[in-house]
């Protein structure tokens, strides 16, 4: 579950309309949204509520608000305003997914390969998604450094990056890394590791190497700054692979670990305790429901699918109640898309959690504030609160309803997706074509 699927034709039509005039949609970061049913996520709903945005920041939330003259006013009566949806696990807007040739590649950084022209950004916007954690794939045990992006369609790559988010490093365990589902060609050796024990062992091996590396540099620095440094003192070789792992051991990076089964997750928790590194979340974590005590004790959350279990052996014991049950047990749960197509209906995925036992308010948290907390950006986004960045999505019905759709997506007070406007432009384009 790592390869983005093709975008639908519908979305492509939208893109062709938006590509040119993208910038025309943008306001100046000042907005007044009026008469919406506001679901702030961190507080009770406000019926007929207004949100005032100045310079991209939410200035006021309440009723009967007024805006400075010239501010764009969006009439939203009958509609639902929610914080922009955050996808905690995708691979969109990247020119590359896996450095899968070797088992250990933490030296690679997804921030180096952002592609702001990826139409999946617009796909995401059309589903109210304003931020994604876009990651290295799960082809190898230690993948690369991931990056958090805002879906600012039409902006240059550097403007997409959310620098305040936790820096994270992708780990992966299980079938993908041991290449269980890969056809072996004659004459080609199978890559190590080929078992779960191997995956665990190679992580330990690399982390021990990183410890040695750190010690080597420490020795060097000590000698260098001593009163009489040896005349032929040579610094150790800089090793980008071990540099990243050293950062993990120093607590500067959070591990995000792709894992399915309970045993491999518990083993990874043990590794983290042994080496003292932080885990941001387990990805997919189909058997998390079996180890809620361990996850709670470690304070580790999960980023999961809602109900697409049993698509491979290691997902066989997945259950659709996983997200709801873990939430009720107090684990920080987010729902992810892991797909450039599913990203536009992530709200539907979260909505299914209602069937499995969560209230609509709890379900909405799975793709907003919970996701923001997992990415370390909950003080900036993830709820509608004064002082937070105005990343918002406007839905025609309750976002956890099966009949809802996203009409407007706003990032930092700027409209990046306007369904009505796009449809009008599409009609106009079709009419022009017909005229010819």
């Amino acid at each position, binding site marked *: 579950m790592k390869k983005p699927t093709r975008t639908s034709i519908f979305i492509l039509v939208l893109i062709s309309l938006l590509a040119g005039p993208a910038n025309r949609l943008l306001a100046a970061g000042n907005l007044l949204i009026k008469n919406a049913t506001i679901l702030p996520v961190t507080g009770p709903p406000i019926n007929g509520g207004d949100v005032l945005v100045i310079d991209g920041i939410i200035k006021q939330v309440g009723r009967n608000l007024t805006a400075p003259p010239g501010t764009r006013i969006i009439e939203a009566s009958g509609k639902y305003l929610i914080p922009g949806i955050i996808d905690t696990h995708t691979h969109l807007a990247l020119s590359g997914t896996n450095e899968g*040739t070797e088992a250990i590649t933490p*030296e690679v950084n997804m921030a180096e390969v952002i592609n702001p022209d990826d139409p999946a950004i617009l796909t995401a916007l059309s589903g109210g998604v304003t931020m994604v954690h876009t990651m290295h794939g799960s082809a190898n045990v230690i993948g690369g450094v991931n990056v958090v992006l805002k879906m600012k369609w039409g902006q240059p790559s550097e403007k997409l990056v959310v620098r305040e988010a936790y820096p994270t490093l992708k780990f992966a365990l299980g079938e993908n890394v041991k290449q269980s589902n890969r056809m072996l060609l004659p004459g080609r050796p199978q890559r190590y590791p080929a078992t779960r024990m191997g995956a665990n062992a190679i992580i330990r091996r690399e982390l021990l190497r990183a410890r040695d590396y750190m010690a080597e540099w420490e020795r060097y620095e000590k000698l260098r700054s001593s009163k009489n440094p040896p005349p*032929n003192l040579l610094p150790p070789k800089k*090793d980008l692979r071990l540099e990243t792992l050293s950062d993990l051991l120093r607590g500067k990076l959070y591990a995000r670990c792709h894992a399915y089964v309970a045993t491999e997750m518990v083993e990874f928790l043990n590794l983290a305790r042994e080496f003292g590194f932080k885990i941001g979340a387990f990805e997919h974590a189909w058997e998390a429901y079996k180890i809620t005590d361990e996850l709670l004790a470690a304070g580790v959350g999960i980023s999961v699918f809602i109900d697409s279990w049993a698509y491979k052996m290691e997902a066989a014991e997945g259950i659709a109640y996983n997200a709801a049950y873990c939430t009720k047990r107090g684990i920080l749960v987010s729902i992810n898309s892991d797909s450039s197509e599913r990203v536009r209906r992530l709200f539907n995925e979260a909505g299914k959690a209602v069937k499995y036992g969560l209230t609509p308010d709890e379900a909405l948290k799975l793709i907003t504030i919970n996701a923001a907390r997992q990415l370390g950006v909950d003080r900036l986004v993830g709820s509608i609160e004064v002082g937070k960045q105005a990343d918002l999505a406007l839905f025609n019905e309750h976002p956890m309803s099966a009949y809802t759709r996203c009409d407007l997506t706003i990032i930092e007070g700027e409209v990046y997706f306007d369904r009505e406007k796009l449809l009008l432009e599409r009609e106009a384009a079709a009419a022009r074509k017909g005229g010819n």
Partner: protein
Amino acid sequence: MKKESRRPCLSGQRKKWLLLLIPLMLAGVLNSLAALAVAEVKPAYALVNCRLVPVSSPPIEKGTIIVRDGLIEALGPADRIKLPPDAEVIEAAGLTVYPGLISAHTNLFLEVKEQEQPQTTEDFLGTYTQAATPQQFPELQVFKEIKPKKQTVESWHRVGVTAVVVAPNRGIFQGQSVVLNLNGDRANQMVLKQPWALHINFTTERGGIYPSSLMGTVAFIRQKFYDTVHYALHQKKYLSSPQFLKRPEYDLFLEALVPFVVDKRPVVFQCNNQEDIKRALRLIDEFKLNAVLTGCNEAWRAVEHLKKVRVPLLVTLDFRPPATSIYNQQGEAARKKAEAEIYPANAAALLKENIPLALTGFGLSESSFVKNLQAALRAGLLPEAALRALTIEPARILGLERQLGTLEPGKIANLILTRGDLFGEKTRVVKVLVDGILFNYEEKGQ
């Protein structure tokens, strides 16, 4: 199969005979001209009654330019230049003389190594299961690979190009380029600068070996640069005091990189899209490289980054939108529209921000080079700017501004004579001098 592969060899030999004949014929002509002169004296030409566009100074409407021993001896208004008695006078009324154009990135004269297609299942599995070897050769001298062909030289003359950079074209660390003067087909005599630069491309390895992804490639390049810095430091320390220091292990790869990473000889990054430019600029900044960017047909989209640095660009006139581009993802019609209407404005947009650049025909045939140049001019590129970007600007980027790029006494006699303004749509290049060697391309019926 075998017969087919021999056929080009035969025609090649035939061409060689022809090529041998041409210098013989030239020699004959020259002998008759310089009958009274001493045999060692090389030919001198006086091009008279022509319009001169020196690039470095304003045009001269009725001028004379004297070429001797492959160099420009003098030029100026007709009434101020005395014709040397030994010079062959070329009546050039109605013709305009420009410095020869420079295409500072080509893959000319490189033999395309076609991979044999596997015919059987065994063959297929054989190629697939072969241990893949990395395609990395920073030490490669492209000069050793080239096979200059007179036909290619002449076809580029016809569009005004008299000097080219030939760059290697495989792998990430591709090797080192050479600057050639298009004066014939003998590589040694053609060299203007060898080697010029190390060429790096943001591509990936094939056959399942590292790096197989773009982010892997960036990491790979960075690691090699760090290794080079350390290697050079180790060597330096070892040379100055080898006692109590383990000698560095010899490394051919790093050895080849030292002159470029440590001694700051030029490094050329091929930038296939806007993001490649940002990747290259990050590396240039991190390792303080003396760098040039090539490709760059989407550079206007990274102009905010380019404005902050003085990294020169070799901007190709290839307007095909890169694979990453949004225009490439909306179907054939949108792609073609972008190629015809958006990408040709690249150079003009960059020059508006005073980004130093040269234009190249990288990736283009000579006919597309001319066609696309016209498109760039229609898209707002000023003719004077285009001329500079094909003459003095590339000369400067190549460090050859004292030898090439303008019509000035003492410079190499690379001249093109056109009927009509160089960038006119019906303009023909009718004579070319390279290193003072005259090539005639008179239109038929004249």
